[in-house]
């Protein structure tokens, strides 16, 4: 399968196979007026299979959210037909209010005033710790 290279835009490459659609939806690419492509299960030398998203426009990307969804992907910024910049998303140090603490005994699930708050403790394992009850949560299989 051949997809035309883009002159100016964004290629989100090396997406973990199977996560492309989720990211496509999160970026709300379904309703845009410029050309977008979602490729799934493309052969990858590094990972065997990968998903790829090509966007023929410059759009704002929430890199931290992308990292949370899939920290394997790489964002290529394309200018004049060439990769002008490669961006590796990094996991945020703090996450506030995005998801609830999994500990049912945690005050953050009880007090109407407080929103959940986590601090990163292990990047490799995508592990965060609740700042209140100090329980760990792995974001490996979490959907956003």
């Amino acid at each position: 399968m051949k997809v035309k290279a883009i002159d100016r835009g964004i290629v989100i490459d090396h997406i973990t196979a199977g996560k492309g659609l989720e990211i496509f939806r999160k970026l709300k690419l379904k309703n845009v007026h410029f050309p977008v492509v979602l490729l799934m299960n493309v052969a990858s030398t590094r990972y065997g299979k990968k998903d790829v998203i090509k966007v023929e426009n410059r759009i704002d990307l929430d890199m931290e959210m992308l990292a949370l969804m899939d920290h394997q992907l790489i964002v290529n910024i394309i200018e004049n037909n060439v990769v002008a910049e490669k961006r590796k998303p990094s996991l945020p140090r703090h996450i506030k209010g995005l998801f609830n603490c999994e500990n049912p005994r945690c005050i953050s699930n009880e007090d109407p005033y407080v929103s959940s708050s986590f601090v990163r403790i292990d990047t490799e394992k995508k592990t965060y710790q609740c700042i209140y009850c100090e329980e760990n949560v792995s974001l490996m299989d979490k959907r956003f």
Partner: protein
Amino acid sequence: MELKGRKMVSLNEFTTNEIEEIVDAALEISTDITGYGKLLQGYIMGALFYEASTRTRLSFESAMLRLGGKVVGFADASTSSSKKGESLADTIRVMDDYCDIIVLRHPKEGSAKLAGQFSTVPIINAGDGGHKHPTQTLTDLVTLKKEFARISNLKIALCGDLRFGRTVHSMLETLSRWKGNSFVLISPEKLRIPEWLRSNLEEMDIDFTEITDLETGIERADVLYMTRIQKERFFSEKEYLKLKNAYILDVKRLKNSPSEMIVMHPLPRVNEIDYDVDNDDRSRYFQQAANGVPARMALLALLLGRWRQ
């Protein structure tokens, strides 16, 4: 960092030097417990107990009264504003103006941390669910230093439910921060320390062994720290009955332990220490409970900046 104005959610936020500063003050106070009646005159302690814990509450109240201060608060959630649905954050912001220091007991984990975000006065965590109970550990440290004149280079045997027991986890985490402490962990196989704690200890290169036999475990110990084995932790009644007797301390089991060893227990005990042990020279659990008051007096005075100013 100065102790004045600090919040105590857990002992992890304090250096070993700072903790020993509190312990040393407590030891000094304990030699003259009625001699500090003017130290906190004019100060008010708010005791917010969202769940009943008579022992902890009374020792805090006693500590404040012995320092000449006054106490306001409530003893369980049924009489408090939380019953009307007020958030903890709002209660703390109001109490902040009513008192100079707040003692909080709450069934939810992390509540003391939350309270600390909304108070300008010091907060002391008097137990937040199954999470932390730093003043209990502080009391244990006071007991150790009183007995051995040090908190380091001790051989400590911990016996009972090491898997679910919060006191044990806190003791292990805290004591392993001092040099040369080693641990013998005595429990049924199913109630050994949780994996996260084991990997913490291994990472810190702490000397510890895990065994099942109580008598063997205390052959060379300086301290035997007993805790309860709760019935509900077992899968069957039969298994509970089979195992529980193996972890009851009586005079016979104490026979081969060193005569200088001390026996501690956070109290209340159910049946894990035979009453005969009370008369043994090694028992220290009542003294340990008594140390709770000077430990809390020292903490109150230091956090309010009134110790040795």
